[in-house]
């Protein structure tokens, strides 16, 4: 556990941790509390997008460019412990990501339970779990793609596009639920759990693949 925290801090410094782990989640819960009275479970979708944006934009300040061929792993390549610690750092970050999203959305979900929602309690809980799975999976896939980009403006522009695409996917969920009443929430949960597995795999595998590749050159 101590090693996990140490290695996590290699990439995610104190300021990042304070802003991303404390400040923004507190802000999210505060905003949600204000919104939920008027919007009920709709606010969950808003906070889900907010958490997605936070995760995606925040990652630039930690793992910026770690999948790109120009990323220099420096010290990590000089020791046999380098790959192991790199993997530990990324896995710890993924665990942190899931816990953070779960924490915020579960609190928001709990607040929704006491709101004037049209959903019953079971549906609210299921919807919360679906959004946790969705946000985590979407985040993991988006950052796996964005980690190829090192340039700030290009990163932010691409991040907006990708978040919009995934945000649109959530809109489909809303459309089916409220317009056609045909959605099976359990089916969506399973779909997003599969998304989580894919996202986690990509988020961990791609930096390690890049690390292994950094020892080889393209030859002619």
């Amino acid at each position: 556990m101590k090693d996990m925290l140490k290695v996590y801090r290699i990439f995610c410094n104190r300021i990042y941790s304070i802003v991303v782990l404390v400040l923004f989640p507190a802000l999210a819960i505060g905003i949600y509390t204000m919104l939920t009275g008027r919007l009920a479970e709709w606010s969950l979708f808003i906070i889900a997008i907010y958490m997605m944006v936070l995760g995606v934009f925040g990652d630039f300040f930690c793992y910026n460019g770690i999948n790109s061929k120009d990323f220099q792993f420096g010290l990590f390549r000089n020791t046999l412990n380098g790959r192991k610690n790199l993997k530990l750092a990324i896995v710890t970050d993924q665990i942190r990501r899931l816990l953070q999203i779960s924490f915020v959305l579960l609190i928001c979900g709990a607040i929704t339970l006491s709101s004037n929602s049209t959903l019953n309690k079971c549906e609210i809980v299921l919807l919360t779990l679906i959004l946790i799975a969705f946000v985590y999976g979407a985040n993991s896939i988006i950052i796996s793609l964005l980690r190829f980009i090192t340039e700030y403006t290009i990163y932010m522009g691409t991040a907006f596009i990708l978040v919009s695409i995934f945000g649109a996917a959530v809109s489909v969920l809303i459309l089916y639920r409220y317009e056609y009443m045909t959605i099976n929430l359990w089916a969506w949960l399973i779909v997003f759990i599969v998304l989580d597995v894919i996202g986690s795999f990509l988020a961990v595998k791609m930096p390690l693949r890049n690390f292994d590749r950094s020892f080889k050159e393209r030859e002619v």
Partner: protein
Amino acid sequence: METQAVISCINIEKKYKNFKLKVDKVDFPKGFATALIGENGAGKTTLLELIAGLRLDHEGEISYFGKYSEKDREEDPVVKNSIGYTGTGNYFMPGWNLKQTKEVQELLFDGFDGDKYDEILKELAFSADNKTDANKKVNSLSDGNKTKLMLAGVLSRNTDLLLMDEPASALDPLMREKLCEIIREYLAEAEGEKSVIFSTHNIADMENVTDYAVIVENGEIAEQGFVEDLKEKYTYVKGDKKDEELGKKYMYDMTTNNYGFEGLCLSDDLDKLAGADIITETPTLTQLSVGIMRANTRLKLA
């Protein structure tokens, strides 16, 4: 001089788009400081990175400490832990602060001594704006201070071999002298069991610490040997303009000006210049290196 080899490279070949490193055989002697000398793009950094295990795809074999192979280097922590490497480029992540550089090295390297790290930084007069600041970011440091950080890092571990790529290039003259002192102290620590291999352009500054020279040109080893032996093998010759044609025939390398010529001659060929009006002297390492590089270079010189 018969010595053991700390690193042996045999039939090394590594190809790039417009360049090929080809080393038939080079043995870096144990217990000595070896300078890897060559012009830009000669292949010094590539060779050092192959030895350090930072580039894995190449042909040929490299052996370590007389008994370990490259496979051992990648599998047995004893081998890689015994090697300290400092290079150019981003060794530390630019966003790390000074405290993190120490924490990371404690995590990544077995046997890293944090207290010794702090001590060495003090000894190197490491400063950021004349005061040590644990929160100062690596990317805000000068190149000289970054070099000092790297040096402090490798010297805080228990290594048997230091591989240093251009360690002196970012350092001021006083600090280069300090670097030479550090290398001498490192070699003296374990009575001939420790070795240093460094690449350099600052031949003059590193000459007084160099025991063995490997001169790389066009991706090949142009010359190698103990400096004292090379100084016996070659003689620095200065001659008059009238003997220039004779010089061109027998000199290994020479330059001419309005007054005459000068350059390297193989000591065995000196008698062929007997009739000429020449002055001979023992070459410095700089003269040796420049002469040998010039004789083998692709660079178009006047």
